[in-house]
């Protein structure tokens, strides 16, 4: 499939060390009393990016967003937007707009008045405000709803009004706090793509806070995973999913099988790990920064494991183990198998259901072999 031109993702400025970041967060710390909500976060975000801050509740992602909007002052560190230091600038003077999680639509104003609110503060002439409001209403497909009050709208419509209001002033940077959090699943999926489309059309830099990893994966040019106020990993969605840098990131994004092992061979070109839990050796086809006899973790995604009834040929006498199918979850497009290994460890394996109503599918209590490729898993030391 040909990829649509995406503004930041095509040029990938974050891969260019000389590129000038649009938002520059330097060693920002925020303490509430004795609690570190955000601790020593440094982050560069580039123009036209759609950057997702992903984390559980209390991970500090919302606090970081609120500091960008100016609602919270960093305890220490600096925030620069478009080359200007924003640390001391009041929220109403920042070239930044925010879409609130609760939408925060003004209940006593209709949709048009809500959208026009920011424009009126800029003292634009009435005609221009009118045109801009009409333009935004058509952007979010709410042309016929301009005279309605927020309480007369559905959740999805309110979400779009909130987006239109936040975009009205053509901010350089748009902050979105759980933009899809209050929508039901189906609406959320539709809106996700709409959001990306709007972001691409306008070329505005988006910073999205979310706890939903699927949302982050499908929206973002890059993701910053946050944990306990710190950034655990920054990377493109594929990096985060396929090459997590820690047990936390591997476990937080998607589902993963994590096993402990001991390094038995440590060569520049490959590594061999013995895992009692798996009941076999793991042969990793690239070098790893580790030492012989070091205990480390190996993580593999469920879809990277192949199931078979017949014993497959193993490379280097590794990467094959066997177990018994205990549970099958049929999800339609794929099935999730829970396989119990001899050690008692359970592995989660997913298989795409490519054959319709397959009569020969692997079923409960069957003895199966599990196999994976040399580079299918990630070796994690932290």
């Amino acid at each position, binding site marked *: 499939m040909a990829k649509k031109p995406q503004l930041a993702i095509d040029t990938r400025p974050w891969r260019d060390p000389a590129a000038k970041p649009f938002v520059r967060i330097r060693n920002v710390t925020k303490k509430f009393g004795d609690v570190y909500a955000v601790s020593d976060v440094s982050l560069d975000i580039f123009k036209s990016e759609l950057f997702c801050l992903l984390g559980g509740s209390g991970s500090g992602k919302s606090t970081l967003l609120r500091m960008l*909007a*100016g*609602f919270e002052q960093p305890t220490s560190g600096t925030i620069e937007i478009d080359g200007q230091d924003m640390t001391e600038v*009041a*929220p*109403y*003077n920042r070239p*930044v*707009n*925010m879409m*609130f999680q*609760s939408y*925060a*639509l*003004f*209940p*006593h104003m209709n949709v048009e008045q809500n959208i026009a*609110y*920011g424009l009126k*503060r*800029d003292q634009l002439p009435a005609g221009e405000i009118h045109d801009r409001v009409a333009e935004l209403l058509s952007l979010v497909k709410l042309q016929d709803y301009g*005279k*309605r*009050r927020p*309480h*007369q709208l559905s959740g999805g419509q309110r979400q779009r009004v909130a987006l239109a*209001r936040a975009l*009205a*002033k053509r901010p350089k940077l748009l902050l979105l706090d759980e933009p899809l959090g209050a929508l039901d699943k189906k609406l959320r999926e539709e809106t996700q793509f709409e959001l990306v489309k709007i972001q691409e059309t306008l070329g505005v830099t988006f910073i999205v806070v979310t706890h939903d990893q699927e949302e982050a994966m499908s929206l973002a040019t890059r993701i910053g995973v946050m944990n306990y106020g710190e950034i655990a990993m920054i990377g493109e969605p594929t990096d985060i999913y396929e090459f997590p840098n820690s047990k936390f990131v591997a476990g937080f994004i998607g589902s993963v099988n994590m096993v402990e092992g001991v390094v038995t061979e440590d060569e520049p070109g490959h590594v061999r790990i013995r895992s009692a839990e798996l009941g076999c050796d793991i042969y990793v086809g690239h070098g790893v920064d580790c030492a012989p006899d070091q205990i480390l973790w190996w993580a593999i995604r469920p879809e990277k494991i192949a199931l078979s009834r017949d014993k497959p040929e193993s490379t280097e006498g590794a990467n094959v183990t066997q177990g018994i199918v205990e549970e099958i979850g049929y999800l339609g497009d794929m099935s999730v198998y829970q396989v119990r290994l001899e050690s008692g460890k359970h592995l989660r394996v997913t298989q795409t259901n490519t054959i319709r109503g397959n009569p020969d599918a692997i079923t409960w209590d069957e003895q199966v072999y599990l196999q994976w490729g040399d580079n299918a898993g990630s070796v994690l030391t932290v």
Partner: protein
Amino acid sequence: MSSFDTEAPAPRRRRPWTVVERGLTAIGLSGKALVIAAPAIWLTVFFLVPLAVVFGISLTVKQFGRPPYTPLLTNEEGTVQLTLHLNNYIRLFTDGLYISAYLSSIRIALISTIIALCIGYPMAYAIARAPDQWRNILLMLVILPFWTSFLLRVYALTGFMRGNGVINQFLGLFGIEPLVMMQTDFAVYVGIVYSYLPFMILPLYTNLVKLDGALLEASADLGARPLRTFLSITLPLSMPGIIAGSMLVFIPAIGEFVIPSLLGGPSTLMIGRVLWDEFFANTNWPRASAVAVAMLVVVVIPIMLLQRAQDAVQDRERAK
């Protein structure tokens, strides 16, 4: 029909009120009707009936004797005669005293309400925005004066404002001539605002405490400075609280009797005092009743209509 219909119903848990409920149903009453009936009966007996009595008396004329007014109904040899005198009401419009008393009462009540709003709004706002652990203490302080008798508190104000009172003694320390405060309209305003301030603060507080902080942040985010945010967001959204608080101050203030008699001078003309004088000094019960009924009509009915209109506007907007 399913088999469920023929099956014996599961034994129901006996509720202690079942017997009462059954008894009520037998005489055509439900528990719901009873709950509504209790306050309805109360209001009828203690509000509507006395009001009707007052209205009745207002249509009679003063006479010497007991009661000090002519009877509404007379029975002469089997002919029941209803005599309605309207001259009490006619006098209200022809005698300048009543009209100026009404106008003066409305003026004093209105100004007091505005002052109470100007003082009460910031207080309510501050309490609503105070940290959680402080909020209840501050509210407590607002309610605290109610623990002392209203009369006592108003009387205590004379101790502050009289010629050699606390304020003048304090001013005297700086060599400032004593101010005349007692027996002036100023003292009446102080008394009314002081006494009714909690009635302004409490409804405003309940409104302001519900105000979503995210709306204020959204306003700031869209470029509004704090004053603009207050005027465009906080103030319109707190309108129901402002109206409720203003009603609670304005309505009792207009008929206030104690404060103008204790603090006001002879020039402070308020309808409550006129009413009192008619009743006790002139023992003109019919005239006093007419003054009371007219006050009800002049003040309460326009307010009710205003509120109805406001509700209608809101309903229409909701229906759009």
